């Protein structure tokens, strides 16, 4: 090594540093979107990673072979300018067909082997196994029934948040466009809740532009293409927890702020969650009566903060959002307001721990307090949290992309935040809630 020229040494040192850096970086922790190592909690993600590792080893070998030959040549065949003799020639070898064939065949064979394993992995990622789960669900008539649910969730991307639909009935989700699907039994946003240890089939689609659904610790991504229902894409989580995701297909202004999470729960907790989600909002008797009058078409002045909030919600929010039990009589027409034609269902807003496309938390992750500040800010001026278009599409198209600034007063905002807080799970209703709240934060 000591015969190396200074610049060669520089290169060698630099490459050593670079390699060290790579190795170090491989151990980086607290990267919740990491596609490698401990962060992986799904069998698919792990299969992919372990295969990639092998290929990366081959790649390192090929690269260092190429680099090695280059450096060797540098060291041994280099002629310094001052030593350069005009009439000194190396042997003029111009070709060697055996060699050529060898180095055509060798990579081809190597790649053929990689190809075989690739196909194997591809097959296994694209095959589905049956693992139905028995759930008690509301039957719509006040009672409960039991269904065999083959876990299957409709994932709908839109600017700039994700909707998740659970259909427990007998609906062929694959054959239909999302616009023609019947109302889902559970509709939630930004946080998908799944039972742990079970293969979940995702039917991914979009209402506006192309997005991509990606939970790196569970599986690779799959695009949400409007007008198309993706071939089923599965995810599975081994451990209860919250798994982070990010929309990865460029989808316009707030693409970077279009995140999502998967909450994996043990089967019993999942059942609890389902039961809670299938109930409407619980109101005090007076408020219920007030709502009933409003629904009947009467104009009644609100008597308290809660009723004021409901009034505001019905006049300002209900054209896009739904609050089951409060806005039943109003047909929300988000398609007239929004390019994507949907806004999150807020009935169970506070059972989710993240909002605004997954970039803000509903609860402080350290204290568990309801995050009034952020939610109030969101209501006051959504664009200050997540870039939105405040202007309509065009002069002829008055639809918006994202949540508009409704010009709410401080009091209205306050009332609405309290109303949203009411949607939180009741004491003891949802055992793992604290755990989810904790897991929601990134540090």
């Amino acid at each position, binding site marked *: 090594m000591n015969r190396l020229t200074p610049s060669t040494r520089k290169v060698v040192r630099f490459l050593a540093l670079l390699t060290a850096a790579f190795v170090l970086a491989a151990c980086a922790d607290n990267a919740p979107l990491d596609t490698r190592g401990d962060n992986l909690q799904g069998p698919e993600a792990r299969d992919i990673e372990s295969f990639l590792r092998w290929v990366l080893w081959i790649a390192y070998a090929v690269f260092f072979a190429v680099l090695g030959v280059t450096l060797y040549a540098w060291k041994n065949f280099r002629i310094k300018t001052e030593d350069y003799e005009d009439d000194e020639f190396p042997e003029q070898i111009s070709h060697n067909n055996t060699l050529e064939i060898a180095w055509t065949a060798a990579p081809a064979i190597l790649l053929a082997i990689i190809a075989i394993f690739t196909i194997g992995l591809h097959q296994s990622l694209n095959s589905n196994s049956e693992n139905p789960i028995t759930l008690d669900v509301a039957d719509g008539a006040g009672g409960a029934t039991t269904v065999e649910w083959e876990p299957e969730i409709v994932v709908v991307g839109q600017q700039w948040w994700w909707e998740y639909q659970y259909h427990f009935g007998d609906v062929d989700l694959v*054959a*239909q*466009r999302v616009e*023609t699907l019947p109302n889902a039994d559970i509709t939630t946003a930004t946080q998908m809740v799944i039972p742990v240890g079970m293969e979940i089939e995702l039917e991914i689609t979009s209402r506006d532009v192309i997005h991509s659904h990606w939970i790196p610790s569970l599986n690779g991504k799959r695009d949400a293409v409007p*007008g*198309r*229902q993706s071939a089923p894409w599965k995810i599975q989580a081994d451990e209860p927890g919250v798994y982070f995701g990010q929309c990865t297909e460029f989808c316009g202004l707030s693409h970077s702020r279009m995140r999502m999470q998967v909450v994996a729960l043990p089967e019993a907790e999942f059942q609890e969650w389902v039961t809670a989600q299938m109930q409407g909002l619980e109101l005090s008797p007076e408020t219920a009566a007030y709502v009933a009058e409003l629904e009947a078409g009467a104009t009644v002045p609100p008597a308290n903060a809660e009723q004021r909030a409901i009034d505001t919600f019905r006049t300002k929010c209900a054209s896009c959002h739904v609050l089951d039990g409060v806005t039943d009589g109003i047909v929300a027409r988000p398609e007239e307001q929004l390019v994507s034609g949907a806004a999150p269902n807020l009935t169970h807003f506070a059972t989710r721990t993240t909002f605004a496309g997954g970039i803000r938390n509903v609860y402080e992750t350290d204290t568990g307090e309801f995050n009034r500040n952020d939610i109030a800010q969101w209501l006051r001026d959504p664009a200050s949290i997540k870039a939105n278009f405040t202007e309509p599409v065009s002069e002829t198209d008055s639809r918006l992309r994202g949540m508009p600034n409704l010009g709410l007063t401080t009091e209205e905002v306050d009332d609405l935040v309290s109303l949203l807080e009411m949607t939180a799970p009741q004491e003891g209703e949802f055992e793992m809630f604290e755990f989810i709240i904790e897991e929601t934060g990134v540090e």
Partner: protein
Amino acid sequence: MSVTENTDVAHDHVVDDHHDDHPSDSSYVLIALGLAFLTAVEVGLFVLEDWIGDNFGLGSVKIALVALMIIKFWIVGAYFMHLKFDNPILTQLFVFGLVLALVVYFIMLSAFEFSFWNDGLEDQGLPGGIS
């Protein structure tokens, strides 16, 4: 270059050494008549499509129409565009583009699960008959 070529212009020394096989005007007319006939057959097939389809199985009309199309294409290319008589490099260049287009777009349409031969109407809900 037709055979009559070097009779008119006084100082034209051109000797037709290798292009004698260019068709004459009358053969061009014959070729055109042939093309017209093929077109008539095509339209005839179209008109009789229902009856033929019933008797010879689905797709036979399509196959026949496509075959006729290819024949017409070839005749125009070979004779009117005299690829048959020109330097083969021209045929190679042209056919390369043509075949490339066919192959690439065929693969593209297959990726849409598009079928030229049998796109049933049942899955019309989605573009190109995909589901």
